[in-house]
Every structure is written in structure tokens, then in C-alpha cells.
């Protein structure tokens, strides 16, 4: 699998679309255990990213540079909890893509593994804290395993998304220990974490993009 900068940008736009579609749902989840703005925040951030992709980054071919600008754009559009978390993820990701105008399986593996780990470095959440890390951590683990076993990226990323989905669902039965919802204690039980959910949407939208391109290539 080989992804050009344009396709990479398109994949990011597809993520933005997915977030836009799920905006209400994400805010709904955040209303239950947080301050109700998660969908709004993610939408503001990803809209700003799309805006940048369509303007300043329109001609940009360096995927590392793209990620760096995406990180800063997202961060400065939203602040919030997710701003630093995703900004750090994209900054870490940008490092492994520096100078690359097309991405092979190896690049994609490294990108997602570094990005995912960036979330943990910034947010210091543990698995079980009921955060986006509960989605991202198992996804990263799956990626690392597939990478070690020499599986192609699409196969590996399918497994990552499946693991992320499990992780996301598992937040429902957790007592929150990080972020706003941690004040709730036991009352956070039974509600899926909004950040874990949007993290899953990001992963699954990227997978969807890959599947669609794959399909086209097969035709």
C-alpha cells in the first residue's frame, strides 16, 4: 500500500466528515459525564484542519509538514483537553513522516504508533481511567504486534480498529479517573467515554478511507 500526500490529506478530511456526522452524539455522551462540548470541540478542531488543508496546505506534499500544521491548527482552534492531546499525537507523527511525500506500510505503521503514544505522553492516562487512551492503547498494541509479525498495514490497521472498538466499549463499565468526569466517581458508570468514542471514529474513518481506496485499486 502506497499513500500519496493528497490521499493522506483526503483521509484526514474523511475523519473530519465522520466527526461532523457524529458531533451531536459525541456531545450527548459528554453531557452525561462531562460538560457536553466534546462533539462541538472536535468539530471545531477538525473543521479548522480541513480549512487549512484546503488553503495553506493545498500544495503541501511533505506529510511530516502536513502533520505539523494539522497539530498546531487543531490545537489553536480548540485548546480544551483534546487540543494538546491530538496536537501532541500529530507532532509525534509528523516526526516519522518528515520529508515524505508518499507513505508506505512501514511509514503508516510508525505514524500511527508514534501518534498514539503521544496521547499517553501528554495526558498521562492509564488504561482503565476511562479516557480516549482506552481506545488508543489497545489499537497501538495491535499495530505493534502486527508490525512485528510483518503483516501488511491494512490488515494491521483492521485489527487496531477492532481492538480500539473493544477498548472504547470497555469504558462504559469504568469509573472515570481522568478529566472532568472523574468527579462523578461511581456515577460515571454505564456511560461510554466521549473521548474514547471520538478516538474510535478517527481510527475507523481512516480505515474506511483505506478500504475505499483499496476497493478502487482492485477494480
Amino acid at each position, binding site marked *: 500500500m502506497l499513500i500519496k500526500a493528497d490521499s493522506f490529506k483526503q483521509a484526514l478530511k474523511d475523519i473530519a466528515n465522520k466527526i461532523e456526522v457524529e458531533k*451531536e452524539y459525541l*456531545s*450527548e455522551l459528554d*453531557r*452525561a*459525564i*462531562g*460538560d*457536553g*462540548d466534546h*462533539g*462541538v*470541540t472536535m468539530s*471545531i478542531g477538525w473543521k479548522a484542519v480541513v480549512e487549512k488543508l484546503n488553503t495553506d496546505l493545498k500544495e503541501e506534499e511533505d506529510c511530516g509538514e502536513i502533520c505539523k500544521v494539522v497539530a498546531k491548527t487543531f*490545537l*489553536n*482552534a*480548540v*485548546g*480544551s*483537553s*483534546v*487540543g*494538546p*492531546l491530538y496536537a501532541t499525537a500529530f507532532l509525534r507523527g509528523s516526526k516519522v513522516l518528515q520529508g515524505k511525500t508518499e507513505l508506505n506500510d512501514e511509514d503508516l505503521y510508525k505514524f500511527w504508533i508514534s501518534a498514539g503514544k503521544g496521547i499517553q505522553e*501528554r*495526558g498521562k492516562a492509564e488504561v482503565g481511567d476511562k479516557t480516549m487512551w482506552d481506545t488508543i492503547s489497545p489499537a497501538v498494541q495491535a499495530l505493534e504486534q502486527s508490525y512485528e509479525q510483518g503483516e501488511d498495514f491494512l490488515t494491521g490497521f483492521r485489527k487496531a480498529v477492532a481492538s480500539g472498538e473493544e477498548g472504547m466499549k470497555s469504558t462504559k463499565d469504568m469509573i472515570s479517573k*481522568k*478529566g*472532568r*468526569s*472523574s*468527579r*462523578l*466517581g461511581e*456515577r460515571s458508570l454505564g456511560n461510554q467515554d466521549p473521548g474514547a468514542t471520538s478516538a474510535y471514529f478517527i481510527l475507523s474513518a481512516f480505515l474506511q478511507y483505506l478500504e475505499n481506496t483499496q476497493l478502487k485499486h482492485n477494480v
Partner: protein
Amino acid sequence: MKKLINNPELVVDEMLEGFVKAHSQYVRQLPENKRSIVINRETRPGKVGVVIGGGSGHKPAFIGYIGEGLADGVPVGNIFASPPPDPILEVTKAVDKGTGVIYLYGNYAGDCMNFDMAAELAELENIRVETVRVTDDVASAPNSEIEKRRGIAGGFFVYKAAGAAAAMGHSLDEVVRLAKKANDNTRTMGVALTPCSIPQTRKPSFELGENEMEIGLGVHGEPGVERGELKPADEVADRLLNTILADMPLEKGDRVAVLVNGLGSTPYLELYIMFRRVSQVLAEKGIEIYRSYVGEYVTSLEMGGCSITLMKLDEELAQLVDYPADCPMFVQK
């Protein structure tokens, strides 16, 4: 829920435009970043810079407290969302007079991460930054994990103490010490009767029955620690006070500053009825109310309900509480 707004995505920027127009004798917007609001008056040379901030929707916090005797600058976030590092950094650069800057904000994951990133960037520019996080909300974590607590209305006392200390000419270390002391001596607990809603969703932040209240809620509409039947004001006040006093025991002869803070839509009438009970209970215990603040100091858009804050005073803190302030939304002579 209904709102007098235009485009929901522009509420913060339009609000800032109005705010700066209305109070140009107090504040100005930095050309580098329109989400960076700083004081528009000459302050004393070498004064430590006081930066407070956080998400929007809490007015008078935070921009309403820019002024003499209080904050020098405020980076402004989206509704209920920490500002990103950029506007924080710009404010920091604008207010630093070579003696360093103190960051004061509520202890929320988002604010901590963004302000920390800004502090790192500021240090790259050779500005010394120290941070004191407000943790007054007794409902947000047990006393054994006191450093995990969130900042709510009591932040006002911490900002005021630090602002006064800086205005008096104290060094950054001293301002930090006093801000920490103010925070350590401050406890708040709140109750909500009706929800707020953020402009983009207009959905109520929570649903409460016609006869229910939510004890210990967060100042962003986060659910509280307990939901119960709405009780008479005196019982509610007792409940809040008892929790505070169990957490920060006070003795006969102690002096406190009291803040009864409206969350947005609670009539002043009700706040004064709450204050009445607070003053009764404290009088019974022989605790002196040194200064009282009743009104809207840290709000949550149109949320209904209030919080009670006590700050235990010693000589030093009393002096800081008394220090005058002149801000767009708070003036003390």
C-alpha cells in the same frame, strides 16, 4: 434553550469584540492574537504579571477581572474549553515586566495541559512562569486526594489575593506563596437547580426534575456528586456549609471571607437568603465574617443555583482581600 446570539461558532469572538468596546478604558485585545486580552493601563514597573484564564461562559471570570489590583491578562478559550497555548503565550509576553508571571486557573485536565505547554514556550523566551492551580471544589475529590480537586468560584479569592500581592509589589515567589496560601485556605461547594446549555448544542447540560437539585455539580454543568430532592434554602446552605466545615475545620474566633456565588440565573434575592443562613451558622460557631461577597463571580452561562465559598483568613490574607481593585466587572474601593 434560547440564546440571544448570532452564529453559535462566533459567540466568543463577538462577545470579546463587545467586551473590549465596552471597556476600552480597562482592556485591550492583543494584535498578535484576538483571544489575548490584557490590561490597558500602566501598572507599576517590575510588577509581577498575573495571568488568569480558562474557558468562556464563566463571566465575570475571567476577563471581567482584568484591572488594577487583579489580573494583568487573560487568554480566552472557547465555551467551557481551555485556551490553547498560543493566546496564553501572547498574554504572557505582553504582561511580563522582567519579574516573571504567575498562571492561575482551575485545575482541569485541559487547562493544565495548555497552560503547561504555554509555560514551556514562555521559558524558551526567557520568561519565568510559575503556576498555582485552584482546587477549591470540595465535591470534586476527597480530602485525601486534595490535589485532584477542581477550581470553581473560590478561584475569585485566589485571583484576588495574587492580584493584590502583585500590585503591592511582591516578588514572583512571594505572589506564588500567597496564591497557594489563598488556595489552601479556600473551600467551595455548589448546588444546581437548573442546567445551562452551550450555544452550539443548546441542549440542557443535565436534566433535573421539577423538584430536584444536584449537589456538588461542576461549574461547566458537569454532573454533581449527588442528586436529591430540592430542600428549603436553609437546609441547602447547611448541607453545603457542613461539607466545607468538615473539610476545613474552623474554630471559634477564626475569621473568614465569604462568597455566595450565583451560577447565572439565580436571583440575587435567593443568594441573599442563602447568605443569611451562612451568616447565622457562622455566628453560632463564633466565626467572624470579615468580608462578604454576594453575587455572580464565576458563572456557568445560565445555570441556576449557587455555591458557597469560605476562605480562612490570617492577617496576610485579610490584607489581600481588603486591597482595592478596579476591573470592568469588579470594583472594590
